[in-house]
């Protein structure tokens, strides 16, 4: 055959092409199964997470069970006025921030410290077994943890009072004392989660190039110096991201644990927004009022999360989700 020179540009053709509609039909014919896989998930999301968002309107309504969500009359911001006039709610809001703040201050550095310390352990057996132990409480339910706390701090039988007794102190009824609630709650949280949270930092440390340490050894640096000059600067981005995440989730106090540990005597320092909502809404049936508190909470949380996400995107070019 002869050599064809097909260099002329052909931009369009005379062949009939399927229309846009036909292409979509073709696509669905060929890919319908993908949509069939997606649909259950979407329906679930709509039914269990998005429908409640529609239900949030009761925060602006005088909701009654008999009329239902849609038919209940609008009352504007009345619930919010009541809310901010309510001493209990303001107290709950304050407690939420205080507890979150202390949890952050005392709870945040702990896993970093643990990771740095684990990193110095050369004995693999020791390291593995201690890691196994400190991760464990993360997997234990809050009911059990609360049960342990209640037992350990009980005035007559509890080990804490037993030990205090050795030093001649009178037993303290810890869980009924408002001033003890926060230390116990925050301490329990750290005890339960610090070990597990250290995994993130250990992973970051594992990613540091060994050549950095090798050259430091050649330069005669001590382990302490290497920790400050190499390890910590290397994991600083991870630390910052985790900090941003934590600030984004500032309002997420583990209220389940609070419900398990608090009692009317300690509401003063223990009651947070979600426990307030739980009591007002689910226990006393003031759904609309409690929903208003929940909406307020959700909006603040959303702003915090989005703010945190955009900050982390800007500074680390990795978004959190």
């Amino acid at each position: 055959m002869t050599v064809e020179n097909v260099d002329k540009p052909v931009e369009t053709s005379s062949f009939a092409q399927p229309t846009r509609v036909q292409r979509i039909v073709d696509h669905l014919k060929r890919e319908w199964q993908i949509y069939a896989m997606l649909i259950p998930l979407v329906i679930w999301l709509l039914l269990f997470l998005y429908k409640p968002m529609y239900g949030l309107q009761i925060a602006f309504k005088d909701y009654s069970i008999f009329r239902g969500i849609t038919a209940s009359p609008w009352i504007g911001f009345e619930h919010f006025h009541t809310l901010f006039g309510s001493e209990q709610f303001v107290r709950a809001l304050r407690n939420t921030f205080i507890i979150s703040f202390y949890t952050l201050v005392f709870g945040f550095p702990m896993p970093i410290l643990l990771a740095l310390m684990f990193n110095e352990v050369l004995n693999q057996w020791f390291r593995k077994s201690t890691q196994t132990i400190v991760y464990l409480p993360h997997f234990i339910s809050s009911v059990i943890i609360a049960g342990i706390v209640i037992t350990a701090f009980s005035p007559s039988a509890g080990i804490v009072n037993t030990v205090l007794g050795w030093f001649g102190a009178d037993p303290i009824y810890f869980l009924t004392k408002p001033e003890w609630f926060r230390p116990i709650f925050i301490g329990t949280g750290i005890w339960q989660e610090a070990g597990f949270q250290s995994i993130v930092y250990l992973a970051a440390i594992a990613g540091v190039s060994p050549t950095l340490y090798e050259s430091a050894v050649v330069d005669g640096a001590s382990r302490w110096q290497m920790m400050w000059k190499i390890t910590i600067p290397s994991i600083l981005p991870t630390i910052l991201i985790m900090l941003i995440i934590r600030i984004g989730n500032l309002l997420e106090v583990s209220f389940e644990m609070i419900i398990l540990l608090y009692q009317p005597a300690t509401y003063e320092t223990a009651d947070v927004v979600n426990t307030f909502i739980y009591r007002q809404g689910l226990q006393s049936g003031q759904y609309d009022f409690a929903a208003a508190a929940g909406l307020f909470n959700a909006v603040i949380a959303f702003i915090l999360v989005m703010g945190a996400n955009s900050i982390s995107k800007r500074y680390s070019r990795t978004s959190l989700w």
Partner: protein
Amino acid sequence: MAGVKLESIVKRYGAVQVVHGINLDVDEKEFVVLVGPSGCGKSTTLRMIAGLEEISDGQLTIDTRVMNRVAPKDRDVAMVFQNYALYPHLNVADNIAFGLRIRKESKDKIAASIKEVSGILGLTDYLDRRPADLSGGQRQRVAMGRAIVRDPKVFLFDEPLSNLDAKLRTQMRAEIKRLHKRLGATSIYVTHDQVEAMTLADRIVVMNDGRIEQLGTPMELFLNPANTFVASFLGSPPMNLVKATLGPGENGPTAHFAGQSMPLAPLDALQNRDGDEVIVGIRPEYVDVATAEDATQVQVNLELVETLGSEALLHATLAGDPFVIKAETQGNAAYLQKVTGFTIKPEMLRVFDAATGHAVPGQDRQAA
């Protein structure tokens, strides 16, 4: 078996058009190689044939059926991927049988097919192994086996050898050729390696920037590149391209460059064009080297001699541009160090229009 016909095939991603209307007629049992630089649209074209990408415009026919809107599984084509895409959780036998099982073939037929295909490819001893436990060449063979076992109308290959080292690549290249001889299946093969293209193809399609630059048998393309792109793409080392001006000479048209001149073949198209710019293509293999004692036509500045054994590559400059010569050593590489120029027969040159890059008509040589 069946032919494949591409008519004005276009691919657009949104507003960006990456394939600009490809016309190609692959005959039954033919082995066609698409070759071109990275990003020129080879894979895209192949994937449109496979049905993995939608065709934006034009018409694709396999056998006699228009395939534009047919799902990949109904096109009866098989594809070998660059990364093989062997299922890591299945052993070799199950990898090969995957397509047959999906198509609900009978157990006996599947067993027989596995036996036959593994026999052809020399995989009989590895049927129980997982892909992770195979060598690169064996994986490559399994990938081929997965295609062969389906006995498709058309085989498509997307750079199937590019993950192998040079030696294995040569070996597998031969094996693919042997398989094609044996099975006689219509095949379309994508590569950016021009050696693979030259050795495997019945016909080569040289693509550039979403268009076909030239299409023909390997020898046709090698002897008669239609333009400077094809000239510089095929052959290793590729054709030297020397800018020159047409001028008068003793025996008809002559190319002048940097104070030197070279007689050209007396083509009609070169008559009465004195002063026009041309590009003279000189295959490194076609020159006869000369030293200061010999009569030389063209002087070059020799810079480096790379001895490859029976052959040597002479890296020189001509008018400031790199110029490569391939010469036989004939056991005397020292001689090559003294090269100062070369002679070449006018009919071994290829002249391109400098403005368009197209070959000047009338100079095609007959492939033997």
